[in-house]
C-alpha cells in the first residue's frame, strides 16, 4: 500500500506546494500508574497530526508537548526493533508502522498495552514471561563435531524452507493476541514456536529433536487452536499459524 496525500486542495489553498495536510486526532490511551492508583484509566489527548504521521508520532507529540508522564517503549521507531507493539483500535500493531490515516482518525483511536502480559506502567508490559518461553526453545544454532574451518554452506532451497520465520522481531504482538495465552500464560505462545521453527527446519542445525521434545508439551504446540489471531497480528507478515502447523506435523511424523 502506498501513502497517498489527501486534501491536496487544502494544501494548495495554503499556497504551500507539497505541504502535507494536517488534521486533529484524538488518542484514547489506557493509563496505568501503580504509584498513583491500582486502577487503569482511559485518558484522551487531541493533537495535530499530518497525513504521513504514524501512531507513534502522535504518542511522541503527547509525551513531548502535553504529558511527559506518558510511558511507552520504542527504540528504532521504524518497525525493526519490535519495542512498540501495542493494541491499537483493538488490534495488536506496531505503533511505528501504523499510519494514523489507516486507523480512522475521525474517531478517537484507542491505544492499550498488549494483553496477557503484566502491565508495568501505561503501555509498558513486563516481557519476561514472553522471553522465558523464547529462551526455553533454545534459539541458537546447535551442531556437533569440530568447529568448522570454513563457511557452513546451505542451498537456496534449504534456506527458503525457514525463511518466513527468520523475520521475527520478538515484538510479542502474536503471543499477546493469542486467546489461549490470555487464559493463564502457561502456553509457550506463537512467538516461541516461530523461533523454534526457524531452527528446526534449518538444515545446518542438529537440535531439532530437542526442540520438538520441548514443544511436545501440554503447554506446547498442542494448545494452538488455529484461530489465526497471531498471523493477523504479526507486523512482519509471518504466517505464524502455518509455522505452528508445520511444527505439529514434524512431531506427528516423528511419533508414527
Amino acid at each position, binding site marked *: 500500500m502506498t501513502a497517498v496525500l489527501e486534501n491536496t486542495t487544502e494544501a494548495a489553498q495554503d499556497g504551500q506546494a507539497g505541504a502535507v495536510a494536517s488534521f486533529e486526532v484524538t488518542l484514547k490511551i489506557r493509563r496505568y500508574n*501503580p*504509584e498513583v492508583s*491500582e486502577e487503569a484509566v482511559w485518558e484522551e489527548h487531541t493533537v495535530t497530526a499530518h497525513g504521513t504521521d504514524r501512531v507513534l508520532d502522535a504518542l511522541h507529540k503527547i509525551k513531548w508537548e502535553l504529558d511527559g508522564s506518558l510511558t511507552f517503549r520504542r527504540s528504532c521507531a521504524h518497525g525493526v526493533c519490535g519495542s512498540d507493539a501495542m493494541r491499537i483500535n483493538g488490534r495488536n500493531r506496531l505503533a511505528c508502522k501504523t499510519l494514523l490515516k489507516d486507523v480512522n482518525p475521525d474517531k478517537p483511536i484507542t491505544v492499550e498495552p498488549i494483553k496477557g*502480559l*503484566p*502491565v*508495568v506502567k501505561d503501555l509498558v508490559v*513486563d516481557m*519476561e*514471561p514472553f522471553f*522465558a*518461553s523464547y529462551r*526455553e526453545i533454545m534459539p541458537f544454532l546447535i551442531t556437533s563435531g569440530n568447529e568448522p574451518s570454513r563457511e557452513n554452506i546451505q542451498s537456496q532451497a534449504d534456506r527458503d524452507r525457514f525463511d518466513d520465520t527468520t523475520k521475527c522481531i520478538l515484538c510479542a504482538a502474536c503471543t499477546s493476541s493469542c*486467546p*489461549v495465552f490470555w*487464559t*493463564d*500464560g*502457561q502456553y*509457550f505462545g506463537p512467538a516461541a514456536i516461530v523461533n523454534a521453527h526457524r531452527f528446526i527446519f534449518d538444515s545446518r542445525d542438529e537440535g531439532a529433536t530437542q526442540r520438538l*521434545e*520441548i514443544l*511436545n*508439551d*501440554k*503447554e*506446547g504446540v*498442542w*494448545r494452538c*487452536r488455529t484461530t489465526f489471531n497471531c498471523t493477523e497480528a504479526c507486523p512482519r507478515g509471518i504466517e505464524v499459524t502455518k509455522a505452528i502447523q508445520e511444527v*505439529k506435523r514434524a*512431531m*506427528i511424523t516423528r*511419533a*508414527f
Partner: protein
Amino acid sequence: MSTQTAIPTPRSPYARRKTTRGNYELYSWVFMRASGVLLVVLVFGHLFVNLMVGDGVKAIDFAFVGGKWASPFWQMWDLAMLWLAMIHGTNGVRTIINDYAERDVTRGILKSLLLVAFTFTVVLGTLVIFTFDPCPTDAPAELLASFCTA
C-alpha cells in the same frame, strides 16, 4: 520506608509452573482428527440406514431398534459410534475447560464432573447395547411388545 509498591510481583503467576512434556496431547490431537473422520462415516451411515433405506423414517419403532440390535453388526456399529462420539466430545470439552478455566482448582472440578458424566453415559450405553432384550421372559404380558407374543 521502602519505595516498593504494594502490588504483588506480576510475573509470578505467568512463569511456566512445570514441564509437562509427553506424547499425551499429541495422541489426543491425532485421535480427534481420526475419530472425526470415522464419526462422519458412522453417523451418516446410521442416519441413512435409519431414515432413508426401505420404508424410511416411518419404519422406526421399538421393533425396528430391537431388530437392529439383534444383529452383531449393528451392535458393533452403535458401540463404535457411542465410544468414539463420547471420547471425541469429552476430549473436546476437556480442551475447552483447559482453555477457559483460569485456576487449576476450577479445572479439576470441571474435569472431574466431565469424567463422571462420560463414564456414566459410556457404561450405561454399552450395557444397553449388549444386554438389550426386546422380549424379557419374566416380564408381565401387558408390558411386552406385540411381536413378542406372536
